[in-house]
Structure formats: structure tokens, C-alpha cells
């Protein structure tokens, strides 16, 4: 059976800067200019203090493994087992991603709070996805 395509994102006006950043191999997330919090996913106001005084900023792309599952029965576009993870960026926000580069992933290979960093995956000419690897 042929594999279906991986689901790909479609940017919206308030998220375009984020996806454009990934295409340029930069992780750009928003920071509130009033309360200084970084936050994710993109929206035109700070979800913490509700200020609209916010701006995108390039961040390190480094963080730690916050939580995850190892999907043995998952999306048909993916080769199981694969890791669906929540990464906590050094700047604070958490985001969903995959941990790549771990052959036959097991819990032993994925220790809690492991250091991770971003890998820019150019899926096609329009979309680059943020993936992470252990460092």
C-alpha cells in the first residue's frame, strides 16, 4: 500500500512570519515587549499579559525534551516507531515536534530532560518543518 503524504501546515496571516523563518532556517518566535515572555504558537498578542506589543525574534533552537510518546501505531505517513515530542525551548515556550536521528527509539535512548536542538527539514520548496535531535 502506498504511503499517504505527511500532513503539512498551511500558514495563516498571524503565523506566516514563523513559517517564513523556518524556510530561512531560523526559528523565530514571538516575545512580549511588555512582560518579556516568549510564547508559542504565534498570535498577535501575548497570551500571558494580553499586550499587543509583541514582536518576532530569532531564538537559539536549543532546548530540552519535556515529554513524548513513542508511536508504534501512528500516522500512516510515518515509519513506526517514531517519536512525537514536546520540546521546551531554552527561551521557555514548549512546542510539539519529532525527535529524529534515534534508530528504533526506546525510552532508554530518550532520557528525561535530554538536551535537543533544532534541525530544519526542508520538506518541499514551500514548507520547512522544525525537527529536533539529541545533542
Amino acid at each position, binding site marked *: 500500500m502506498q504511503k499517504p503524504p505527511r500532513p503539512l*501546515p498551511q500558514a495563516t496571516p498571524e503565523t506566516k512570519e514563523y513559517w517564513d523563518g523556518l524556510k530561512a532556517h531560523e526559528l523565530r518566535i514571538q516575545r512580549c515587549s511588555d512582560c518579556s515572555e516568549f510564547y508559542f504558537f504565534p498570535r498577535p498578542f501575548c497570551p500571558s499579559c494580553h499586550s499587543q506589543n509583541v514582536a518576532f525574534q530569532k531564538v537559539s533552537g536549543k532546548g530540552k525534551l519535556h515529554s513524548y510518546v513513542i508511536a508504534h501505531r501512528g500516522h500512516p*505517513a510515518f515509519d513506526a516507531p517514531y517519536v512525537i515530542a514536546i520540546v521546551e525551548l531554552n527561551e521557555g515556550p514548549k512546542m510539539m515536534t519529532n525527535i529524529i536521528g534515534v534508530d528504533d527509539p526506546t525510552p532508554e535512548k530518550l532520557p528525561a530532560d535530554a538536551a535537543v536542538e533544532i534541525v530544519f527539514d526542508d520538506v518541499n520548496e514551500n514548507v520547512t518543518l522544525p525537527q529536533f535531535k539529541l545533542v
Partner: protein
Amino acid sequence: MADSTALRHKTAIVGAAETNTVGVLPDYSQLQLHAESAFNAVADAGLKMSDIDGVASVAPAQLTEYLGIMPRWVDGTSVGGCSFLIHVGHAAAAIAAGYADTVLITHGESGRSRVGVGGFGGGASTIGGQFEAPFGVAGPPTMFSVPIVHHMKKFGTTEEQLAAVSVATRAWAVKNPRAMMRDPITVDDVLSSRIIAWPMHLLNCCLVTDGGGALVMVSEERARDFPKKPVYLLGRGENTAHQGISSMRDMSVWSGAAEVTGPEAFRMAGLGPKDMDHAMFYDAFSHTPMYALEALGFVGPGESGPYMAEMHTAPGGDFPMNTNGGGLSYTHTGMYGMFAIQEAVAQLRGESGERQIDGIETSIVHAPGGMFSATATLILGNQ
């Protein structure tokens, strides 16, 4: 803040029933499941469908069309499995306000056979389509389960403790002739069942079934005139906090329950965790009721793992929980919350057969909608 205690004990459930059977029902459309449970609940209350003047359902327009009724109050809250708990709270306020006298709340879901059901999912430009779908999430096992590894890391919660939830719940299902899974299981059985999304094995995951359930609610003044023992609404709480699991505020705690629905429901009821004789804590996966136990204050943060391993909630334990066999072993249509309410009502009426808890006066029903996204709590009593 306005005070909801005025609505304590002001309304009651006087009709409650499920579909004639639950399980694998390919001969029923989803709407038929709504309708059969609705007619059963109305009959249980000794009423006719034409007596109904208020309706709550996740799709009320479809339901009223199908049933051919014209309610003067409707609620279409649709936030997943806890929607029906929220409907109960809303119905209480509507009855007290005079918006309706006799409210019908229904659930029907062809979750397994998918007869007369729309498609799943949203588009690629939704928040989920952009920030979760590209990473291969594929249904609840790969989303709902995501927080538990953080809980394991923070508190030392183990796979064996998660398995104990399934074992305790199955022990109740053994006593329920309507349950889909009735063979006793052990911790080893759970851990040796195939991995779905580690740390969740097959036996840590709820069933996928077809079925329905419905309730009839009226004011406390009218409640004594019905055939069955009234089950009073003492407290309720509701909340939505996020949609996607990646936006869960703190992956070690069910914030909606800890901060909003638990305090709200206990305050309205004038009761606390120690006053609860019985609990129905929605078990989509083994970890779901563990998060409920902690967030609602039945155990301290991080203590649910050892607590479950000690089998307090199993038959013979001091805190009977999920006594119908739960979503893990009884039935799980997709939005299971209605079945949790049904079992609480059955226990409070003394209708639970071999699994009946003696002397029960209170029950707490608690459920998530989506991926810990929405939350609702009900406190019910029979005095």
C-alpha cells in the same frame, strides 16, 4: 464572584438510561443511538417525549429534527467527552431560571462502526493543522498520552502503576454483564500487551465502541413525583483551557480541574473530597483518572501512581472508582462522559447489581473533553 451555591440541590436527574446494548452495533446509525437512549430515559422517568421542553446535546438541531420535538431551551455545548457533564450544569441553571421544565440530555455515538458519522479533523491552516498534525499525531493515543512522560519524570510514576489502573478497572468490569471486556487481567498482562504509543500499551487504552445514554432533569420540587429515586445535582464546574495537547499549561497537572472545576463543584456542593463515596473519573487512558485524583485533591501531587498500585479503587477497596468498568473495559464510544454519569446515577439509585456500593450517598463524576482540553465535574447525591 457570583455564588452558585443557590443552585445546590435545586434540580435532579429523574430519568437515566443507555441504549439497549452497548458495544459493536453496526445496525444503528449515530442518531438512532441518541434516539433509543432518549426514549429509554424518558420512559424511565415515566414521561412521554412530548413532555420534553429543553434539550442539550452536542448536535441539538439534528436531534430535535430526528425526534420531532420543539424545545424552548437548547444547549449545544460540544467540547468532547465531558460535554454531557456540562449539559447537566447548564440544564440546572436553565430549569432554575424558568427556561425549561423538563430537560432531555442525550448522547449517541457510532464510534466504532461509524454509521451516519461525519469525518474527523480540521484543515491544514488550523492551529492543530500547523503545529501538531505535521509531527504525526494520529488520534488520542499519540496526543492524550503525551503529558505522562513528564509526570513520570517529575514524580517517579511507573509503567506498573499505570497498569494498575487498568487492572483495578477491569476488576469492576468483571462484575458488569454489559461490559465488553470481562476477563480479569494482571499488571503483567498490561505490560505485555502491544505498545500503542509508549508508555501506553493496548490495555492502557480505552475501548472503541458504539452506544448512547440519556438523562431527564427537572426541578427539585417536581423530582419526588417521579417513579425512580431522584439523584440531585449538588455541585458542578466547567472549563476549557486549550485545544491541542502541546498547549497544555503544565503537563504534570490537570489545571482545568485543579484550578477551576474541582474548587467550583466542591464549593457549590458544600462538600470536599472526603465526603465522596464513589467516583467516576473518565478513563480514556490509564493516566486520565490519575490526573483527576491529584487535581481534585483526593491524593497529593504525584501520589496517584502509588495510590493506584495499592488498589484503593478496585472492588473491596476504600474508594470505589469507575465501577462500571470504565472506558478501559466497559464501553467507550468516543465521548464517554455520559456513561460515567449513568453509572453514578445507577449507584445512587441502588441499581448497580453485583457491583453496587452499599450505603452510597454521594458520587463525583469528572471528565475531560479532547486532550485534557475541556474539563467538567459533577457532584451528585441521593439525599
